[in-house]
């Protein structure tokens, strides 16, 4: 089996592209809400199309995830760590999928036009202050939960690459890196996001 030790290359590319996009999205989100500087408009203009891009990517990713072979976690990993690994991955997938939809629904409930360039996308829920009152705080809540989960995921990835050195990190980083992986990751730790 060619992909026994690593995820499918397309899935690996998607993972790193989405990692960058989601981190950017979380930072842009909290910054645009708080700032009153001229960055506000710019950040909002990035946030909405980037969110839609993430939504499309996560759909492709989930489809790939189910249709390709997935490397098994090392047998040396204790059962509770395996359980946490699976739980956090499904939590991440769920939040990646839900968050753009909540954003879209929240804008729809507020009656804002959701535009992508000059194309106006249809609202996905009717205009309602009550719906907005639930969806808007939910968008923040999921953002915080997603950020915390990503940070735990990052810490776990670093733990695998720096301490356990069990091939879990290279299953996503790519097999060709395996030999110099530990050094490489140490040289440029932010790679591991």
């Amino acid at each position, binding site marked *: 089996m060619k992909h026994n030790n690593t995820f499918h290359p397309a899935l690996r590319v998607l993972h790193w592209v989405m990692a960058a996009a989601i981190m950017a999205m*979380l*930072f842009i989100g*909290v*910054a*645009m*809400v*708080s*700032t*009153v*500087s*001229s*960055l*506000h*408009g710019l950040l*909002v203009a990035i946030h909405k199309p980037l969110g839609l891009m993430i939504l499309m990517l996560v759909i492709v990713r989930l489809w790939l995830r189910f249709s390709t072979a997935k490397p098994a976690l090392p047998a040396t990993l204790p059962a509770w760590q395996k359980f946490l690994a699976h739980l956090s991955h499904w939590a991440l997938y769920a939040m990646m999928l839900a968050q753009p939809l909540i954003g879209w629904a929240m804008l729809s409930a*507020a*009656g*804002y*036009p959701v*535009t992508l360039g*000059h194309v*106006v996308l249809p609202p996905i829920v009717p*205009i*309602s*202050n*009550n719906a*907005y*009152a*639930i969806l*808007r*705080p939910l968008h923040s809540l999921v953002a915080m939960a997603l*950020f915390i989960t990503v*940070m*735990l995921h*990052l*810490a776990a990835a*670093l*733990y695998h690459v*720096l*301490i356990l*050195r*069990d*091939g879990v990190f290279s299953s996503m980083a790519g097999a060709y890196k*395996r030999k110099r992986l530990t050094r490489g990751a*140490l040289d440029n*730790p*932010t790679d*591991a996001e």
Partner: protein
Amino acid sequence: MNKPFLSVGHKIVRLAIIIVIPLLLIALFVWAGGWLNTGRLTSDKLITALEKSNGNHPGYRRNRAKGVCILGDFSANGNASALSRAALFASGVTPVVGRLAIAGGNPNAPDYAVPIRSMALAFYQKNGEQWRTGMNAMPFFPVQSVQGFYDLQTATLPDAKTGKPDPARMQAFVRQHPEIKPFFAWAKQYVPSSSWVRDQFNSLNAFNFIDKEGHSHLVRWSMVPHADYQAMDENEKNDANFLQRDLQQRLANGPQKWDLMVTVAGSGDKGNDASIGWPADRQVINAGTLTINKTTAQQQGVCNDINYDPLILPDGITASDDPLLNARSSAYAKSYNARTHEQAGAH
């Protein structure tokens, strides 16, 4: 797998890296979200300043809290389509949901006590795009910057001891923001009119109109009433809700109208300073007529669901470099989030 042995020292260093990297990112995140108490002005601080000066009124807008919904349409004559390719400026009719209000965050303020009034409008284009604009019945904005607006709010807060604004703080404010002097001079001589339909509402902020060729034109706009100006009379000075009553009576007799007048900046006119009015000799284009047919109470009214964010713009209009626009957008969103949350909780 070829794993080199890790000494205890190595392990500690590596564990430290595992902990420090996420912590650094978390710190950066907290900073980006404005949760660190730096001097940076945030939408939270603006809204808190407004709440302090007006008191807490859950469920209401944090500014221009008292108002009514208005319904009607905008009939464009096509004249402004040379400047902007926005669909609503092409000859035709666009439905409008708006709001007439008085300034300040107190929903129970008597109408006669608040000289500044406002008109907010949302235009609904057929293609799904919207134009939202909030205008005020004053010739220019008191201050140029967001900091100026915040400082003005805090300088006019009542002193804890005297219960009145501290004159020394106000003087310090004027020294820091001398651009407010023309506004004070205007306010001193201004006599409010007897009706919302007699008021001219001005965008104050500048925007860019983008034409079909993609050229940008710096503009401001005004809603100029068909009804003549008439000063507020003695009876009205005793009626806390005379504006709403007047509007209902007038609409019972027929629709009320304003012309949308677009002023094109001349050379030297700045887009980033709403505290300076542009000279009167600038080119002005009549873009069409706003007709209002109906008014309803705001709570549970159609306009209640609308955040009149001035950065909700159709293709053909973009924000200028006026710093107030971003702050309005950001702070309005905070106010909208807060009041919808409070309204939902009240059910």
